[in-house]
């Protein structure tokens, strides 16, 4: 276990290093990406640009710039180019909406994914299963921002049922938080509900064909017990681990889009806006944060997998 952790964490560190270098480099090759020009302001004299460059260390060799930036990120003192505010504090402020979004949507898609998956498998081949299949595929096929825009238009604008975006802190107004998050949650989780229900349905059907399920039936167990203790118990294992991985992935993917659509002022939106401003430090920090989440959750999922499935031993 300790060795496993050590190896995995070492690998994780390598991955994070590569991710940070890559991000850093991407912004170096951008034409017009020289932050000194933008920071020096309008009609700046070459002298001014030069000064800015010196002050921020943009005249240093790349690896040195990279090193200092990473150092600042690690000790929490990194400042954005465009607004010159502390990036990590800014991210800490933007974390609640992002976490509300990801965790809430994650729970929703897990819950409904499992529900529909079980329903579909139990009624495999029947009309209700086909309907669920069609719905699931529709969910998978709908772009998040299209769904978000439609919801905003109909639920928010036309029918006035829900607020038109924005974020209300849970601590300030729980009900407001809920109503503001409802549409983002739905927009973010629909596709995953589709995927999870399909994966689980297939998993259950596979498991139903397993010999040990036949054994369980031959033991005279009730169908319910067979389903819950033998079928679900086994087919949920991959789902649970999938969930962990997706939760991390969604922060760097769908959540950014949803935050932008619903104006949640979350970490993803901050990153997307920073990219538009060619502001490297926030992008770097958010990217690392997301990559960190992906890597760490990857390790956690492996551990969880080993806990849930006694056949798996942690190695490699």
């Amino acid at each position, binding site marked *: 276990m300790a060795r496993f952790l050590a190896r995995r964490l070492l690998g994780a560190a390598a991955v994070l290093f590569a991710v940070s270098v890559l991000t850093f480099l991407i912004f170096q090759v951008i034409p017009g990406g020289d932050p000194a020009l933008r920071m020096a302001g309008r009609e700046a004299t070459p002298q001014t640009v030069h000064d800015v460059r010196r002050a921020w260390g943009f005249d240093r060799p790349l690896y040195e710039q990279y090193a200092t930036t990473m150092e600042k990120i690690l000790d929490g003192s990194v400042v954005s180019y465009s607004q010159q505010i502390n990036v990590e504090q800014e991210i800490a402020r933007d974390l609640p909406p992002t976490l509300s979004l990801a965790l809430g949507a994650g729970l929703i898609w897990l819950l409904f994914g499992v529900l529909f998956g079980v329903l579909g498998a139990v009624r495999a081949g029947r009309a209700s299963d086909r309907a669920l299949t069609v719905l699931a595929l529709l969910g998978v096929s*709908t772009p998040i*921002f*299209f769904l978000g825009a439609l919801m905003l238009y109909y639920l928010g604008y036309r029918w006035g049922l829900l607020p038109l975006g924005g974020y209300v802190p849970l601590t300030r107004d729980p009900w407001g938080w809920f109503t503001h998050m409802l549409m983002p949650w739905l927009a973010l989780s629909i596709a995953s509900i589709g995927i999870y229900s399909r*994966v689980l349905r297939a998993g259950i059907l596979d498991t139903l064909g397993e010999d040990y399920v036949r054994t369980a039936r031959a033991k005279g167990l009730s169908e319910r017990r067979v389903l819950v203790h033998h079928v679900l118990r086994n087919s949920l294992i991959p789902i649970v681990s999938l969930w962990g991985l997706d939760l991390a992935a969604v922060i760097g*993917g*769908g959540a950014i889009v949803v935050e932008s659509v619903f104006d949640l002022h979350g970490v993803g939106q901050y990153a997307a806006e920073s*990219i538009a401003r060619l502001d490297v430090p926030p992008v770097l920090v958010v990217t690392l944060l997301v990559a960190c989440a992906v890597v760490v959750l990857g390790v956690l999922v492996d551990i969880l997998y080993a806990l849930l499935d006694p056949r798996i031993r942690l190695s490699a």
Partner: protein
Amino acid sequence: MSLPPPTPARSEPTVGTEPPLAAARAPAGPWRLVAARLRRSRPALVCGALVLAVVVACLLAPVYAREVAGTGPDENHITDTVRVGSRTLDVVSPTGVPIGPTWQRRFLLGADPNGRDVAVRLLYGGRNSLEIGALATLVTMLLAVLIGTLAGWFRGLTDGVLSRLLDVIWAFPPVLLGVALGVALAIGGLDLGVVKLSSGSLLLPAAIVGVVFVPYVARPLRGQVLALREREFVDAARVQGRGNVRILTGEILPNLTSTIVVFLPLMLANAILLEAALSYLGAGVQDPNPSWGTMLAEGIRLTPGAIHLVLAPGLMLVLVVFGVNVLGDGLRDALDPRAVAGGRG
């Protein structure tokens, strides 16, 4: 963008219960069997036909533009008027609101703020979306097959390096990666010495989208190759004196095809969606080439007054991606020897 998990590359179609009474049947290759199964899946066929219809329609865009709508995709009609029934309407109102669907030849699905015919642009945009989707899928598949087979086959250091590479792409937030690359490459294009992509090229978003999805396919492929290389038929090929290259191409690759085929539509669907998302965030296709993603993104800006600008590309996108997904589903079922018609249990 959340993806369906990489389907664990499980048994290839031919492995499974030996078909009963096999000897009595006329020999049917695995692919013919798949085709037969696919032919029996009505939804997959219908959706396949639908996707095909859309593709054909998009290919015929110039014909529609010339013969039906009478305007090109880039022609502005901002200050023009159009007769709808007995009334004469502005194509774009003085306050900038474009006309909605007229359900007639001109401006069938309405106009956009530049007074361009949405139906015409939809067809032209489809070409770009589909082309990017197809190219991206190609990129994904080529890279994934290359990385997956090399890593799985050579193991050791090669595997270590390639797997870390996949980890890096995997850990990189896909939308951020896409947007960052999109922004980075939008002006200067990409110049890797061998590969040169100019900034306006459709290949650019295709390459970005393609790279993002590589781990989703490469990982299961690698796993499959790891398993395949232990199979006895690989030893059999060695015993007959075959080298690595011939074993990879002659023995391993054919066994990966079903996995690849299963992933193709899935990746196509996801590529189209990711391209749309990137366009929404401003890192997609460069104008003046529309894609459904860029059209949708522009439309969203203009809701609520011009909802047709959202619905037209949005529904088209959903329709095609849905069709591709259903087709892929049918294909997967057809390739899965264990799936019995009507489901089990």
